[in-house]
């Protein structure tokens, strides 16, 4: 047998790096780098290099399972599908279609997500969402409002042509490592790099100006920078007049944010705020890169809107090297949203509460009855399950029992469901709570298109068969749909993409054959359209073609330090792990490098508690407490502690305070206390 190189897209973050899976005799035997890939150019981070380690992991689910007492029984696919049809069908019949909820997966392909939301809506439930809710929901809501499109405005390689890169709330050097090559390339060409983060990170090593702000004070910093820019006349008057509306109101709203006042709120020196503001406004091309440090707040949407305000008043938009760049965390979180696996949008960001949307899909899907939205969001579903309003759930490739804030509460809510079916590759904490578990396939075991953070749609090929009786996620969804009496005839992923081409205007020209050996950046409205790497070149997809400047008042985080909880806990990722860790914690070369949950704290704070580096400590919040190893550092200011969220302990602590608009939980700020173990 000869070795074949199968082109795939990395299953981890949203950068969308490509690599070849080398397969021989139906087995994946290695990775080869893809030197001509437009984003990664052959590079891969530690996670990408370790990707094959999960393929043959002994924990892989290899047959459908049903709960039997405290344990599990292997069952046939037929029995599993019957049970799922019965579980979902009975709840639907007894309590109505709105008692069903569906969690789709930003780890799965566009085709999988499209089918999952279609299944939910054909069954009459508006309750479909995905974990984008926990990462970039404020970007979707905020940027749709201000710019008329949610997504990175410019492609990743374009960062190299920027002359000033403002990175706020993103530790891209650890979370999207290949993006740092483009930042460095810009630096080589003389770009200035500004990093704002409560924690010094490998990303801030790249910075010329490092703004170490207090957690949850981003709006104040961004308003403060806007104040300096307006006050010193550094705005782009022509751009504001021609392309935006709402400048007067914005100007009034930031009037009070003098560098002095901003400094008091954020803890940053006033001269650094001024320096950053001047650099951003006056460079010939400035880009803003942001991530969860902006979105995972009770003011997430406000944060996103203030970012877009800053870009708009300086006219740093619609040209190479400029733009607003939400860096997305999962390999297909952009695609899952594009496909309408969101409570408030049908495919292609068609508003779920718009009768035209319902009319359109009624015709497209030949379905007489479709539920108008918005449905319940990912976090609200769990809440509603606890309250008994949601009776049955179908969860694909997500682990809310681990990844949701205040996770003990999430766990109890899921337990109270009448029926829970979980489709995954491992027995996750969520799958442990299920009635039926269906074994899915990982990226290399199925084919489909994935949309990375820069809206680049790439086809990932199938290299090997799934283990045991595991099946492709598309196949499973189709089987479940058919067992519920729906017509779901999609023999392969290409046939689903063909339907996406017809129903999602942004993807109309992204035909399967055009993705062979190439990629396309949406919007791509026709079959000969080259794709649109840079958005907003000539205007905005909003009324009058103008972007909206929306004044944003500063409001503090939901929780502040108190006598009982004197520290502020902020959470994030480390380079060798990914999200809830169900993959990376099972990957020997990754878990061996970061085996345990740790809490980083300032050396002085630790000294006051008599805690030394490596000591086991307890971290407690109003929700619960968890054990972690102390890691003493100068990365954090006094009063702030940091924990990675890849281990089950962290989200026991986090607050379920949410952003009122985007419904994202405030993972980035909560009050906690740290105790010595003894």
């Amino acid at each position, binding site marked *: 047998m000869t070795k074949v190189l199968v082109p795939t897209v990395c299953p981890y973050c949203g950068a969308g790096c490509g690599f070849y899976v080398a397969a021989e005799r139906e087995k994946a035997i290695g*990775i080869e780098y893809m030197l001509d890939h437009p984003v990664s150019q052959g590079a891969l981070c530690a996670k990408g290099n370790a990707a094959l380690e999960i393929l043959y992991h002994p924990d892989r689910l290899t047959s459908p399972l049903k709960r039997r007492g405290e344990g599990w029984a292997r069952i046939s696919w037929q029995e599993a599908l019957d049970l799922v049809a019965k579980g979902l069908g009975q709840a639907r019949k007894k309590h109505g279609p709105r008692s069903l909820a569906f969690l789709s997966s930003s780890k799965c392909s566009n085709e999988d997500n499209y089918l999952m939301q279609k299944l939910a809506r054909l069954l009459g439930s508006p309750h479909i969402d995905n974990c984008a809710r926990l990462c970039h929901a404020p970007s979707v809501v905020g940027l749709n409002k201000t710019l008329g499109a949610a997504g990175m405005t410019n492609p990743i390689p374009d960062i190299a042509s920027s002359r000033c890169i403002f990175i706020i709330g993103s530790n891209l*050097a650890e979370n999207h490592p290949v993006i740092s090559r483009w930042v460095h390339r810009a630096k080589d060409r003389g770009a200035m790099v500004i990093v704002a983060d409560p924690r010094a990170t490998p990303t801030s090593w790249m910075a010329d100006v490092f703004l170490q702000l207090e957690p949850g004070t981003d709006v104040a910093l961004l308003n403060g920078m806007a104040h300096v820019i307006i006050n010193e006349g550094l705005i782009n008057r022509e751009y504001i007049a021609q392309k935006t509306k709402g400048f007067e109101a914005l100007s009034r709203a930031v009037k009070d944010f003098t560098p002095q006042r901003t400094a008091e709120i954020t803890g940053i020196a006033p001269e650094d705020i001024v320096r950053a503001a001047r650099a951003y406004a006056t460079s010939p091309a400035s880009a803003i890169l942001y991530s969860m440090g902006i979105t995972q707040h009770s003011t997430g949407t406000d944060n996103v809107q203030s970012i877009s305000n800053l870009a708009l008043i300086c006219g740093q938009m619609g040209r190479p090297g400029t733009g607003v760049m939400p860096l997305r965390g999962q390999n297909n979180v952009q695609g899952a949203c594009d496909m309408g696996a969101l409570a408030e949008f049908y495919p292609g960001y068609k508003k779920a509460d718009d009768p035209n949307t319902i009319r359109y899909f009624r015709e497209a899907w030949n379905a007489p009855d479709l539920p108008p939205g918005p449905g319940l969001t990912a976090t609200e579903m769990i809440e509603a399950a606890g309250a008994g309003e949601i009776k049955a759930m179908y969860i694909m490739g997500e682990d809310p029992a681990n990844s949701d804030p205040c996770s003990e509460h999430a766990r109890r809510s899921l337990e109270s469901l009448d029926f829970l079916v979980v489709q995954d590759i491992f027995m996750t904490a969520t799958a442990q709570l299920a009635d039926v578990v269906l074994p899915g396939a990982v990226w290399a075991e199925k084919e489909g298109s994935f949309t990375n953070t820069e809206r680049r749609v790439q086809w990932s090929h199938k290299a090997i068969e799934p283990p045991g009786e595991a099946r492709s996620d598309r196949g499973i969804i189709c089987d479940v749909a058919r067992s519920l009496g729906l017509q779901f005839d999609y023999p392969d992923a290409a046939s689903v993409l063909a339907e996406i081409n017809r129903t999602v205007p942004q993807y109309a020209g992204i035909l399967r054959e055009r993705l062979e050996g190439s990629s396309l950046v949406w919007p791509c409205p026709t079959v000969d359209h080259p794709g649109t790497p840079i958005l907003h070149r000539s205007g905005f997809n909003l009324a009058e073609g103008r972007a909206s400047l929306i004044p944003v008042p500063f409001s503090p985080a939901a929780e502040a330090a108190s006598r009982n909880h004197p520290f502020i806990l902020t959470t994030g990722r480390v380079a060798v792990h990914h999200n809830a860790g169900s993959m990376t914690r099972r990957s020997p070369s990754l878990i061996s490098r970061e085996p345990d949950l740790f809490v980083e704290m300032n050396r002085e704070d630790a000294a006051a508690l008599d805690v030394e580096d490596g000591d086991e400590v307890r971290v407690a919040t109003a929700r619960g407490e968890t054990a972690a190893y102390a890691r003493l550092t100068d990365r954090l200011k006094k009063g702030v502690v940091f924990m990675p969220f890849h281990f089950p302990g962290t989200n026991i602590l986090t607050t379920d305070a949410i952003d009122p608009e985007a419904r994202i939980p405030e993972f980035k700020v909560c009050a906690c206390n740290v105790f010595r173990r003894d």
Partner: protein
Amino acid sequence: MAVYIDINRCIGCRSCEVACQRVHGGHGHINVHYVREYAAVPVLCHHCQEAGCTMVCFTGALHKEGECTAFDVEKCTGCGLCALACPFGVVWTDKIAHKCDLCQGREEGPACIATCPANALSDDFDLATRRARERAVRAAAVGGKR
């Protein structure tokens, strides 16, 4: 040839470690070390001109082949003298000696260079300093302004 490091660029992501381990059957030859919270430094064989490890290797398992400090696994007794002799701690023994072989047999060259997300590693001795010179020239050309 050796692998050269641009410390300004290293983001400490440990991608090189995992890649090296991957292509060497689980035995990695590059290690990333951290200078407190301020920098990360990948450490690996320098392929020294006068390599201490080759001088103490009495079987000739470790020997010079041109610029490369090469290793002949058949001759290794696993005595561990090389690990004692190496001033950088980049040769170690676990039954036999392990060290960077510059990914011999890998047509595309060392995996760590190819995989480095930040382009911190290269086989170009002059790259890091040339980058610095070019930055300086560019800054001078615009009068120190960005």
